[in-house]
């Protein structure tokens, strides 16, 4: 057979559909069967119940678990508290990351950038648990670092609790907000800032009308991490939360004895995150992850 085609030879190249199937089958088997299958099974379980006497699963459809989450004040409070923590953490991360990323991308010398990026990345690689533990040492009432620093100033350490959780989670997820915003800012051409000031815009106006629209997808990309990771966290609450509990703590304490209820509680952050992901998919933020 004589051929003049420029595509590589071989069975797969002449049969692109088969080649695609070959590439996709193993990863899809893993992600769809193992992962999506497990998630589906979990959400199905959320509509079942556990028999109080035998501890066996009762596989009949009921909304009882969800009703319990939304009507029991303790669970409802925990849910609202968790969402408020996730929102506050996202806000704190944004407030810290915007000026810092702007400094890295626009103020610091270009030759410093690799060092500055490494300085943001390094704590990301320090173990999650170690960082939470570090904040246990920071926040400890009376003998913690913050108490030692703040007490002489007449202030008091936030200690373990709601604010402690917010500070620790902000610390944990901050790099996830800095890096996308930094990347967005480095893509912003100088000429656009110059054009804006030539047209008479002051700093604030330029920021609102030129910088913000360009880095918005980066902010959304960062917020996916800060919001979602905060919603599902329970270890931070255990270590620096004192008596404050989050949704994850309820899941963790109930899943052995009442899996359907734990599944229902776990569904809540998933639904919130999925709605958020679907809403932002159009903004192109997912390409910035």
């Amino acid at each position: 057979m004589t051929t003049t085609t420029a595509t590589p030879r071989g069975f797969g190249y002449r049969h692109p559909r088969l080649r695609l199937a070959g590439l996709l089958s193993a990863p899809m088997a893993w992600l769809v069967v193992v992962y999506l299958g497990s998630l589906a099974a979990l959400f199905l379980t959320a509509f079942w119940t556990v028999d109080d006497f035998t501890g066996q699963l009762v596989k009949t459809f009921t909304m009882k678990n969800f009703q319990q989450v939304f009507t029991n004040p303790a669970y409802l409070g925990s849910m609202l508290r968790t969402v408020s923590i996730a929102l506050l953490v996202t806000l704190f991360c944004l407030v810290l990351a915007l000026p810092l990323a702007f400094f890295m991308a626009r103020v610091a010398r270009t030759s410093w950038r690799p060092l500055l990026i490494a300085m943001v990345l390094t704590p990301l690689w320090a173990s999650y648990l170690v960082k939470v533990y570090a904040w246990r040492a920071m926040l400890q009432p009376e003998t913690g670092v913050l108490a030692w620093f703040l007490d002489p100033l007449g202030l008091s350490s936030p200690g373990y609790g709601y604010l402690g959780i917010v500070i620790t989670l902000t610390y944990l997820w901050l790099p996830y907000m800095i890096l996308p915003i930094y990347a967005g800012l480095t893509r912003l051409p100088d000429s656009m800032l110059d054009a804006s000031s030539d047209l008479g815009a002051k700093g604030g106006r330029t920021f609102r009308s030129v910088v913000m629209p360009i880095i918005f997808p980066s902010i959304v990309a960062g917020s996916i991490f800060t919001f979602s990771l905060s919603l599902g966290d329970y270890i931070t609450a255990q270590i620096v939360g004192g008596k404050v509990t989050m949704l994850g703590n309820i899941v963790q304490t109930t899943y052995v004895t009442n899996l359907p209820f734990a599944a229902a509680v776990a569904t809540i952050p998933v639904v919130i995150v999925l709605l958020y992901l679907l809403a932002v998919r159009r903004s192109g933020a997912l390409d910035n992850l």
Partner: protein
Amino acid sequence: MSISRGTRVVLTIFAIIAFGFIYVPLGVILINSFSTDKSLTWPPSGFTTEWWGKAAESESVREALLTSIGIAIAATLVALVLGTLLAFALGRYRFFGRESISLLVVLPIALPGIVTGIALNNVFTSFLGGLTIYTLIIGHGTFCIVVVYNNVIARIRRMGGSVEEASADLGANGWRTFVYVTFPLMRSALIAGAILAFGLSFDEIIVTTFTAGPGITTLPIWIYQNLFRPNQAPIVNVVAAALVLVSILPIYIAQRFSNADERGGGLI
């Protein structure tokens, strides 16, 4: 450029404070590991290297470290194979459902770890008859796929298909093209992806808690178990400090294979 001097000064001061916020807690961990105090107390009352010696001799710490490394290697291998296959499928072909797959691959790290954890725990205990070291590797592999995928697909997008076509025009078959052209171009992306996957697995605690068989203790699990034991604080401090120091290493290596630019400055 139109940034005033005042703004520059304010931003510089802000950056110094922000970096302080980022590094002070890590510094506290390092200093505490040399403290003579047996509980978390600041400021430390004295200097000693005794705890570093005790931690180095600790059998349980060494076992946990080896377990963590072994699991991270296995999960990285799974992620390398599956992530690369997926990246080639999505990077080279246009087909129905392509967008959904790119969303699906991010899901295991975008969803809270506890959800992935109890979902896998439920399935493993109901259908596989319980938790083992293999269920733990499956759990870790699942969320590591995305980092390999992201690195490889970024490289595929940048590389295009022309070099492979050139190879084919010169008479190479599919396998030869892969060995001499495609793989060498992919190598640094694969290394960067592997380092990230290894780090992700090594650090993971939540999915580990729910998918590890009984008696399997990774380093994060070891820390977690000893965190609230008062007399263990000095050893926990040392392990924590060692992990902070070790975390600098992957950063250095990843910088060498850095392809943050081609990934649009993405994280993972």
